[in-house]
């Protein structure tokens, strides 16, 4: 019999262009989350990071965090699932507590990407794709998304300026986000005149390389029931797809996202329309409509309408990127899933300030590794 699990503490460090060290980043978020939970000890620590070794030289993050928190000999380990590493770490901790192995756990997602050049960072990030059959042919992550974007624009007769509105919405929400990196509003015209990175992808279609860390304390129901502000994990879905785009039956379908969502929603006994807040993996503007379609919120080829119709605003039917999303809050890869979960927690506690989605009671968090090869989806529900 699985136990109910809840979030009892959450904190996010400000996303930065250049943080002093991965140690400091992880420690700051972890300490703040433990303080938020009013705990000094947990039964286990799980750290999510995509490529700390390649970016900083530092592997072995589990004991690093445990040591810095003076919590040794607590069990501690690192989980890797490319850009879904944060959510994957959360998933592992959730399963461990639900199974009865532990009563509480600290989950920290951390990445410090600024220690290497953009070219080296691009090469490291490309490792989330199929290295032999995509990267060795010259593909970067931007290049792969560019090919999908060209096909989306062509197949569904969509204008680039319509997709770029997802970026405009993200930047608008980042303006009042306490931890966002890019706190600058942008217009459609400004975004459309930004430089081409990989045709047709322009700079404002992309999320930035940056540093960040976010943490959550999870606890079993017998602990969490004492917390009025506990946010319950009602559903968890993890699914995989082919490593490369070219092995998919359809370039413009994210099957793993659909399957993970179905699993999570079934566990939560909810329909996707029942959700009040959606934090999705908007690493590139073209991914947003593909994800919205995979979740069943829009028919295939019509996800782009979400931005044009204003439905993604904070008071819209499908509020997304409520603190700026990957696009403007920033995308410190292995930490991103944890930022999404922390932001959803703030929404469900009613602590989101100017970024608050009215009457938010449930949230869906969708985090993607690679080009959709790993998808982690969690459904959260407020106590109040």
């Amino acid at each position, binding site marked *: 019999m699985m136990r109910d699990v809840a979030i009892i503490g959450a904190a996010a460090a400000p996303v930065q262009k250049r943080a002093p060290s991965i140690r400091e980043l992880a420690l700051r978020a972890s300490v703040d989350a433990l303080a938020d939970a009013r705990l000094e000890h947990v039964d286990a620590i799980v750290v999510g990071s995509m490529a700390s070794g390649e970016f900083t030289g530092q592997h072995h993050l589990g004991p690093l965090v445990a040591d810095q928190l003076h919590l040794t000999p607590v069990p501690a380990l690192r989980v890797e699932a490319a850009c879904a590493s944060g959510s994957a770490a959360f998933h592992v901790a959730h399963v461990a507590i639900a199974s009865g192995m532990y009563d509480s756990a600290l989950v920290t997602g951390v990445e410090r990407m600024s220690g290497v050049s953009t070219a080296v960072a691009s090469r490291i990030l490309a490792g989330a794709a199929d290295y032999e*059959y995509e990267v060795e*042919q010259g593909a*970067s992550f931007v290049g792969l998304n560019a*090919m999908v974007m*060209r*096909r989306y624009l*062509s197949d569904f007769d969509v204008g680039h300026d319509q997709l770029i509105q997802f970026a405009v919405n993200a930047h608008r929400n980042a303006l009042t986000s306490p931890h966002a990196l890019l706190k600058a509003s942008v217009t459609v015209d400004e975004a459309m005149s930004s430089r081409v990175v*990989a045709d047709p992808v322009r700079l404002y279609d992309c999320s930035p390389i940056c540093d960040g860390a976010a943490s959550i304390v999870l606890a079993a129901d017998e602990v969490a029931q004492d917390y009025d502000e506990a946010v319950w994990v009602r559903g968890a879905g993890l699914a995989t797809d082919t490593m*490369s785009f070219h092995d998919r039956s359809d*370039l413009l379908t994210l099957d793993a996202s659909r399957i993970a969502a179905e699993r999570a929603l079934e566990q939560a006994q909810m329909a996707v329309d029942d959700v009040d807040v959606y934090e999705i993996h908007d690493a590139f503007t073209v991914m947003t409509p593909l994800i919205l379609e995979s979740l069943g919120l829009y028919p295939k080829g019509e996800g782009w309408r979400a931005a044009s119709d204003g439905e993604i605003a904070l008071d819209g039917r499908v509020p997304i990127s409520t603190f700026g999303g990957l696009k403007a809050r920033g995308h410190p890869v292995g930490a991103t899933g944890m930022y999404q979960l922390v932001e959803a927690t703030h929404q469900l506690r009613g602590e989101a300030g100017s970024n608050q989605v009215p009457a938010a009671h449930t949230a869906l968090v969708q985090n993607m590794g690679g080009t959709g090869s790993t998808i982690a989806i969690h459904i959260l529900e407020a106590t109040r």
Partner: protein
Amino acid sequence: MKPDGTSVGGAHELCWPRDSTADATQCCACERVHVPARWHRCLGCGSQGLAPTRVELRGVFESWTVPHTVEPDGAEWALGLVTLDAGPMLTVRVKITGIPLSIGARVAGTAERPAAGPERFWFEVLSAPETADAALTEVAA
């Protein structure tokens, strides 16, 4: 492959046509094109042998982008997606020639396996979509 010769779930071993100039070489099990630097045995048909070092491929252009990484020799090329006539799709390098890149264009290329390292797929555009039939005839001739 297990010691008793039965299949291991999910394993992809390869089957290669004897004619190395065939349109595509692909695995009977997964239908994916490979040029492996190793002996192979196909789970589907039981054939075995050494993969050819160079095969010719033809197909249709699905999408592309001009890459932001450039070869040391300065050769212009784009990153492309091609659906081969034999079925599988590949991520390839497309040489920039006088024919504009467009979805649906006929393309042809090679898969080459170097002495060390992974194979490379180099393609060129044969014709724009509206003249695809003519290009096919030309290739066949």
